[in-house]
């Protein structure tokens, strides 16, 4: 990244200014990091208390889960469980203990698996990230190809493009997943039905999440693309004798993708919650499944830990969005 400023000011103070600038940048980075940590703790805290606010006693559900029942337990049966997991301490103590552990990289121990939450999540996070990031990338490719090829290409082609986007954007994940499964794993057995986390088994789950998202991204890109093509600079470019494809790719596209980039930060987080459906259909490991099970079993540390991870993904995604903005829009680099 270059700006004009240092060149202009260079004769006056050759070294001092870049130094001051880097201090400022460092301070800004530190501030960002601190606010990120604050957001993470807030997310974990809200989850922690929200979990406790739901009706249902944790010790009861641990016993019911161990024994496959739905009964009430006597206090003599509950007290050893309460003691073991520290439920008999005041809530504030439990909370402080939890947050204290957070700074030591300890997210607590799962009530049901008896394993540290970090290892519960650690084993499952990679397949989910592969799935969600893969889906985001594929959705972008679909959206861009459809937009570039169909905007302002005559009424029929434009209509096909926008109908395709409206249709895919409205599809429920489960439906897409089952149809893909039946068509591409059963009727035409190209892909495995239960593929685990292998590369080949990842294709259909990725498409399951990518197809509805591509319609969504395509719709916002299309609107912007359409508007940009009316801008004076496009006319200028055309007047310079630039070809239509070059105009679309080099000038219009840059402007048109900005809203979709903004959406991508949100989409990555939303995909993690949608991942559970793809994971269910294709018998794929991942954090979505773990989250559903943990919510069902009132496994507070696991739920809070996963929310923490999802919050972290949001933060990183938004950071990437900021960087992507700067890369796409030169106006932002100067400021």
């Amino acid at each position: 990244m270059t700006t004009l400023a240092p060149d202009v000011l260079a004769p006056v103070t050759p070294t001092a200014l870049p130094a001051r600038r880097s201090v400022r940048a460092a301070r800004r980075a530190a501030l960002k990091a601190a606010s990120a940590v604050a957001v993470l703790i807030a997310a974990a805290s809200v989850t922690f208390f929200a979990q406790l606010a739901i009706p249902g006693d944790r010790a009861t559900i641990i016993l019911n889960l161990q024994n496959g029942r739905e009964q009430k337990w006597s206090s003599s049966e509950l007290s050893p469980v309460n003691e073991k997991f520290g439920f008999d301490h005041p809530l504030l103590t439990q909370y402080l203990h939890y947050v204290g552990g957070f700074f030591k990289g300890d997210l607590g121990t799962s009530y049901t698996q008896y394993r540290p939450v970090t290892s519960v999540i650690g084993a499952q996070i990679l397949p989910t990230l592969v799935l969600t990031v893969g889906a985001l990338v594929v959705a972008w490719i679909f959206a861009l190809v459809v937009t570039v090829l169909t905007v302002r290409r005559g009424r029929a082609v434009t209509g096909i493009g926008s109908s395709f986007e409206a249709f895919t954007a409205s599809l429920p994940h489960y439906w897409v997943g089952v149809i893909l499964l039946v068509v591409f794993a059963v009727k035409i057995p190209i892909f495995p039905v239960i593929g685990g986390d292998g590369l080949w088994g990842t294709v259909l789950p990725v498409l399951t999440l990518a197809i509805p998202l591509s319609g969504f991204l395509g719709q916002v890109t299309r609107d912007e693309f359409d508007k940009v093509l009316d801008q004076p600079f496009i006319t200028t470019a055309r007047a310079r004798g630039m070809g239509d494809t070059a105009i679309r790719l080099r000038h219009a596209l840059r402007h048109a993708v900005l809203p979709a980039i903004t959406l991508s930060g949100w989409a990555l987080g939303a995909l993690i919650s949608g991942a559970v459906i793809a994971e269910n259909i294709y018998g794929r490991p991942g954090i979505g499944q773990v989250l559903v099970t943990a919510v069902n079993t009132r496994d507070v540390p696991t739920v809070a830990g996963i929310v923490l991870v999802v919050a972290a993904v949001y933060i990183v995604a938004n950071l990437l969005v900021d960087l992507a903005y700067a890369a796409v829009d030169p106006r932002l680099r100067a400021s």
Partner: protein
Amino acid sequence: MTSPFPLRRTRRVVAGFAGLVLLASGLTACGAAAAEGGGTRVKGGTITYAHVQEPPCIFGGWIQQAYISRQVLDGLVTEDQDGSVKPWLATSWDVSPDGLTYTFTLKDGVKFTDGTPLDAAAVAYNFDQFENTDLNGTAKVSMEPYYKSAEAIDPTHVAIHLTQPYPQFLTLITQGYFGIESPTALKTRSKEENCEKPIGSGAFTVEKWKKGQEVIFKRNPNYTSWPSTAKHEGPAYVDEIKWKFVPDGVSRYASLTTGQSDVIYEVPTVNWKDAQSRFSNTIRYITPGKPVSFYLNTKAGVFTDKLVRQAFAYGADRKGAVEAGFHGVIPYEGNPSVSQSTPDYNEQAAKAYAYDPDKANQLLDQAGWKKNADGVRTKGGKPLTVKLVYGAGFIFTSEGATVLQALQEQWKKVGFDVKLVPATMAELWGGKYADPSTFDATPSYWTSPSPAILWIVWRPNTEKAPNGNNRSFYNNDQLSKVIQAANTQTDAAKASTLYQQAQQIIQDDAAGVGLYTQNTLIAVANDLKGFWVEKSQGEPIFSDAYFVK
């Protein structure tokens, strides 16, 4: 796996027709012929099994855990297909004349897979843990009323002492919950290790648990302790089982028809006919114990009145709804306390309360509930509202929920305003609906190979001896006495009469309302032979299974 397609051998044959998973229309029998007539046994191989629920641990008190722990743990005795109890780790046993002491003679030289000898002390230690710790709550509750102590007499003889004669004891310990674990492993390893890789003496050992995906079992090459009911002697034929968790029914069935799995659990009922025509080994096992039946809250609300409970039972065509909802695959069960596959089942009692809306109307009139303009009955200004809480997604599948909706419509016609309340596992198991003030009716099941389940479920719930399982809050002294007399009765014929009498009391009083049986629906690929499910709980047995060419 080297190839991205875990397709194997001849099973490609059936793959092309698998598109029927959504349509479930009839089809020509195509796959079945391919493997009929035996074929030659292939050495080794990996069985891929698609199951539904992933349990928190490999063993425990939930039926899902009994299924999976059976692969690694052996029991003292096992139940044969005719209901008799047969030797396993115990080659024989003696019951003392007073019925209070069971002395088991153990098979000699059996070792756990960690090398610890499986001797009398190990068995005694396990029983002591069942009773006194949280090792297995269902094992505990099954023997608790009469269990006293376990004693290792010498390395091959272990005595279990009871407080009263309890002939059902032998049948109850055939369940997977009573799998014997290595005491060394239990004492020296962490809870986490024992949860993930319990050490038994079984045909397989846990190799790896990929959470959210599968448990990989490896063959135990030194297996010596197969049950007397096994189909062959010696270690398992196959090298490995991949026990996969595939919650989605469409995928599970598709995995079998495309040859990517060899055995699937819970075949969707919509695919059952198709499965029967394609696969030569399909198993419909009706689980004994308490069927899926409604508990009616007899302590608070509208069902405190027996007439209203009876009207509720008469008021809807439960049989028709079950048959329609499950495509005729899952049987209706009119007996609310035990299912038709349970010993000493009262067939007569099951016939009570056949659909009779006139009778229902008459009983409600008699109880003083008057029909309003909108069709809902009221009494003293209060509407006849029934809050029906059900476990959505884990006790009731979407098919089961359809049955409830059909019933709701019919109950409406006789004047019940039934509110269906779907409850999540967190809510139901977390105790949100434990209190009598929170619901009027709730359906659930409890599997058991013995009518002694009556005591576990219907034992009175008192201050001194709470019984959270009695979800009807139904305290009946006479019932309690009859069940206890049945449990301790050493004359089998007399015990049977008493158990049937207990079922009659529950049915007459309409303390519960029957619905359908709990089942295991399994389909097996045609090139896998020798797979079976055991009798007590329908636990899948892979140690006798082998592939053919």
